[in-house]
């Protein structure tokens, strides 16, 4: 009749009591909040009540047609120059890593020149290209020409600005892409080669997708930096972009500050959109690197508002 020793927990024993400790206080945080609140209030007060800011003018011109068109030109310049810059940057990075010494040293010389001179100088140069080469011809090198164009009609100021910005950008992108490619372990290329993949396939299907995780954050930096560098295209001289447009209006109004604020707000708005895009792009290329992707801000919000549905997923 002797019962075996009990191993399972006895049902009449209550589970251990949850700890209910007094949470640690953080007085330093409250001091910081107070100091920052006072400083913030002073700043806002100074900005709002200072008549020199001319907030009425800001309000009147913020959604002005001309500024909107200027923002559009700036966005076009940014996207086109960045697109070409990334493409050429990848080509230059692959060239620099090539075992062919001619290709790698050519890429090195390109980087040396375009990183070594100010982008403002380069933009002035591209603006003057029609002085150096009045006509552009298509034909056999050192041989007959089939067609010839006036440089000024082909390379407008807009085209010159895109060329100048993208060639400069390519030099920086080349280094970013190279760092990304080098971050992928050699075992990956070896495994792909052992499966019979050719070098171009290995690069496109295996190495570059993994390099993207390293490439995207600094490229986002470059994109935002490009958005602001477009304000230099006045050197070409291209004067239809956001900054030049706001400058032009302000000179007519004799009110430089409010139009500068308008332009800054537009730049900030475009940057915010680009940053959101970067966030989701990074998530996409993080696939496989983390066991589970963290929730997006939208998902976090949804989970907080509808906690049940969030847990059910």
């Amino acid at each position, binding site marked *: 009749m002797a019962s075996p020793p009990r191993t399972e927990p006895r049902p009449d024993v209550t589970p251990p009591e949850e700890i209910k400790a007094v949470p640690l206080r953080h007085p330093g945080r409250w001091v910081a909040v107070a100091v920052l609140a006072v400083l913030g209030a002073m700043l806002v007060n100074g900005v709002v009540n200072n008549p020199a800011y001319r907030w009425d003018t800001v309000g009147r011109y913020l959604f002005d047609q001309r500024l909107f068109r200027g923002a559009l030109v700036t966005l076009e310049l940014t996207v086109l120059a960045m697109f070409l810059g990334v493409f050429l940057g990848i080509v230059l990075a692959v060239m620099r890593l090539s075992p062919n010494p001619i290709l790698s040293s050519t890429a090195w010389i390109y980087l040396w020149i375009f990183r070594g001179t100010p982008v403002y100088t380069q933009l002035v140069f591209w603006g003057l290209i029609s002085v150096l080469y009045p006509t552009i011809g298509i034909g056999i090198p050192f041989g007959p020409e089939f067609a010839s164009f006036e440089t000024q009609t082909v390379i407008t100021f807009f085209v010159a600005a895109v060329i100048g910005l993208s060639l400069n950008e390519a030099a920086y992108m080349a280094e970013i892409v190279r760092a990304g490619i080098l971050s992928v*372990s050699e*075992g*990956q290329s*070896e*495994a*792909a*080669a*052992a*499966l*019979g*993949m*050719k*070098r171009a*396939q290995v690069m496109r*299907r*295996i190495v570059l*997708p*993994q390099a993207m995780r390293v490439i995207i954050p600094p490229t986002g930096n470059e994109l935002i930096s490009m958005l602001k560098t477009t304000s230099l295209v006045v050197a070409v001289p291209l004067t239809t972009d956001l900054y030049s447009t706001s400058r032009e209006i302000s000179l007519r109004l004799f009110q430089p500050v409010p139009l500068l604020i308008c332009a800054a707000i537009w730049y900030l708005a475009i940057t915010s959109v680009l940053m959101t895009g970067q966030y989701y792009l990074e998530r996409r*290329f993080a*696939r*496989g*690197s*983390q*066991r589970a992707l963290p929730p997006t801000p939208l998902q976090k919000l949804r989970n907080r508002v509808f906690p049940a549905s969030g847990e059910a997923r």
Partner: protein
Amino acid sequence: MTATGAPPMVLAEGVHKRFGRLEVLKGIDLEVDRGEVMCIIGPSGSGKSTFLRCINHLEQINAGRLSVDGTLVGYRQRGDKLLELRESEVASQRIGVGMVFQHFNLFPHMTALGNLVEAPLRVKKEPKREVVDRARALLERVGLAEKADAYPSQLSGGQQQRVAIARALSMRPKLMLFDEPTSALDPELVGEVLDVMRGLAEDGMTMVVVTHEMGFAREVGDELVFMDGGVVVEAGPPREVLAAPQHERTRSFLSKVL
């Protein structure tokens, strides 16, 4: 095994390999027959991994002759001249040789299934449905049918290595090379990988296995090769070599690992 008159699967004659001044392989002569499982053991730095990598031309040999299934690796012979093969020719030679690495080297941005279908789709350009069906069957064979959609980071080391074996098999190779396939695994995960390899051997796959698993070599191997200092010191049936090594160097190595 030689009665058919077909060339051996791997034939190495006087293979030398140098890295700069360092001579890693100093004349390797080996023959692997069809359906044979050859295990290569030896201390680290003995050149066993390098020899394995030479077989699918991940390393280029400096002297000697190395051929797979009667075809020279990496070169074409014209008269008494050797011509280097083009990149695409080297790539197509590798299709017939599967390789499994110590650190798995799965593609982390693809699922297990994606790892398996990549090469058959992109290299062999086989029809997608056929490739996917075969890949699922291979995953089932290595016991990972339910992990088809998992990324490598979500798998244990043993599971990753089984996927890597399935990936190599997806190209339907005639020869499989294993470079210390269990050395990076936790001890309790080694068995599941060795089981898969044992199954392959039973199905008649020709295999060259660089390993430290003496038990596997004894039970599954047809031939055991002991390498040291870039040369083959001793070779023979595994039970004989392990039970009664003929050379002093083999004896001292085995006394350390057994």
